[in-house]
């Protein structure tokens, strides 16, 4: 079983469109994992059925037992996040301000405060429109993506791939370069970077490539909309070739990308120049992965 992770560093580069296209090309050979839970969008392209749902918990939250509370105010005094306030003579907790540090629990003389797991969202296991299995998640408002959630989504995808003897796991990776990204790289066989030739595109590419290199994972790069700024595209291709990154493809600025998206289709389900390019990239990738 081989795992491909698609990453971009910043939003808006076409990462999810390209991941969705790979998912359609791989069909039932692959399990799909959407780890971009901050902006989970792949369900719009792959029409999963949300068949299995489970709540997801991350971190903790303080709760006050009003029967035990004597309104002494020590919690409010100790809390550095301003999470406790006095309302009509009783202390209440603002869950959005509470960071779950637990200091209040330790210092409450009445033992009136306990910590409970904080619900952060839902995880789904679905069947997509091409018949493959997809693991994805939705965060609650104010909840943050974490290495833990990414690990959960990825681990279930990997287990399903082993159980069902699938050849590939295709992962839409998390944005940024923090803990969720590191978590989305665990066990990866290959990383596809999707970038665009803008002033911030190259900067983000350098940072994310640095993270991947540390884990010794082979990677390749797709420059999307390469023709909107040929000079920047040249700079990016220099960076790619001088850092041992496979140059996978240049995709031209192509309105059919959004046209396809508007019809809830991936680019490979339309007739367009980009379709052929992505099919070729996927063929190259599968060859690389199987050998």
């Amino acid at each position, binding site marked *: 079983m081989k795992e491909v992770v698609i990453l971009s560093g*910043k*939003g*808006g*580069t076409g990462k*999810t469109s390209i991941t969705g296209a790979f998912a359609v090309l791989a069909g039932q050979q692959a399990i799909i994992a959407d780890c971009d839970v*901050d*902006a989970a*969008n792949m369900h*719009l392209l792959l029409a999963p059925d949300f068949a299995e749902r489970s709540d997801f918990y991350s*971190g*903790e939250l303080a709760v006050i037992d009003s029967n035990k509370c004597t309104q002494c105010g020590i919690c409010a005094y*100790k809390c*550095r*996040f301003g999470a406790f306030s006095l309302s009509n003579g009783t202390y209440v907790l603002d869950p*959005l301000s509470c*960071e*779950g*540090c*637990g*200091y209040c629990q*330790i210092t409450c003389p009445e033992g009136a405060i306990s910590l409970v797991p904080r619900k952060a969202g839902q995880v789904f296991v679905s069947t997509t429109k091409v018949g493959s299995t997809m693991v994805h998640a939705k*965060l609650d*408002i*104010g*909840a*943050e*993506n974490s290495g833990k959630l990414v690990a959960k989504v990825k681990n279930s995808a990997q287990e399903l791939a082993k159980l069902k003897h699938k050849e590939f796991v295709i992962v839409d990776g998390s*944005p*940024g370069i*923090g*803990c969720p990204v590191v978590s989305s790289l665990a066990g990866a066989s290959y990383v596809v970077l999707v970038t*665009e*030739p*803008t*002033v*911030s595109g190259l900067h*983000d590419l350098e940072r994310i490539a640095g993270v991947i290199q540390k884990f010794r994972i082979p990677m390749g790069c797709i420059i999307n*909309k390469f023709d*909107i*700024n040929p000079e*920047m595209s040249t700079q990016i291709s220099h960076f790619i070739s001088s850092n041992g990154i496979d140059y996978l493809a240049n995709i031209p*600025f192509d*309105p059919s990308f*959004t*046209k396809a*998206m*508007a*019809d*809830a289709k991936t680019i490979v389900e339309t007739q367009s120049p980009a379709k052929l390019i992505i099919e070729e990239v996927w063929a190259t990738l599968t060859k690389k992965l199987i050998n």
Partner: protein
Amino acid sequence: MISRSPLKIAIASGKGGTGKTLLSTNLAAYLSEFEPTLLVDLDVEEPNDALFINAPLLSTANQHKMIPVWNEQECILCGKCARVCKFHAVVRLGKTISVFNQLCHSCYACSELCPTNALPMQTHIVGETRFFEKESLSFIESRLVVGEEQAVPLINKTHSIAQQKYNHIKTHLLDCPPGTSCPVVAATKDAHYVILVTEPTPFGLNDLALAVETMRQLGKDFGVVINREGHGNSSVKEYCQREQIPVIASIPFQREIAELYSTGQLVYSTIPAVRQALEQIALVIKEKGAAR
């Protein structure tokens, strides 16, 4: 009219890449042609408004958080600090107590519960705020130090700097981080009005709906700007109509905008359609200011 605290307009979007930076920078420059305007880049993990606002740097200031620092002489290695730290920022590694600054939430539990006062709290640099000025446009951005993970304290600090230092400027534009998580909640919490930037695609609609849900939960007054209008479909417009959310302006889908933007240029002076959209947004901002 009695002078009062600045009108704060937040610019947000459910996801990255919708044109939030394009709108913030062009709107700020446009508004400053008429009256002094402040632009605040609160996307502290990836601030990039500065790439488009070509203003000279006036000054910089370090921003701090409090972290515990291990005092080996006082420590009896009881390990209480490591046990109380929910974030595993303080761990006992053999005969050493190690503090991992980037994981520390500054809750003070380890420091204040230490029986021998061996973990006093000290300041630690987490980011930098940079101040720029060009004619009547003031611009500040805060940037997290690479490796620091908590955006919220720096966002809050930047808010209070804008409040204290720029109270004389009537309009504050706040460029918010993307998404619907804590940093967005922190960035929009003081705003009088929120502009949600989206694009007319199913992706745009999905993320807009999440952002709308967030804004409603926070009790915010908000409107929508549709970027790249003309490609995609009409589902965003239909959604806004159904939900009775005002669409205050649209920016057309033009390759020229993408090209200028990719080179770091402001576009409203060369592209009339963008200027027109900014005029409409400015009217809404004026109304919101008057209605306050």
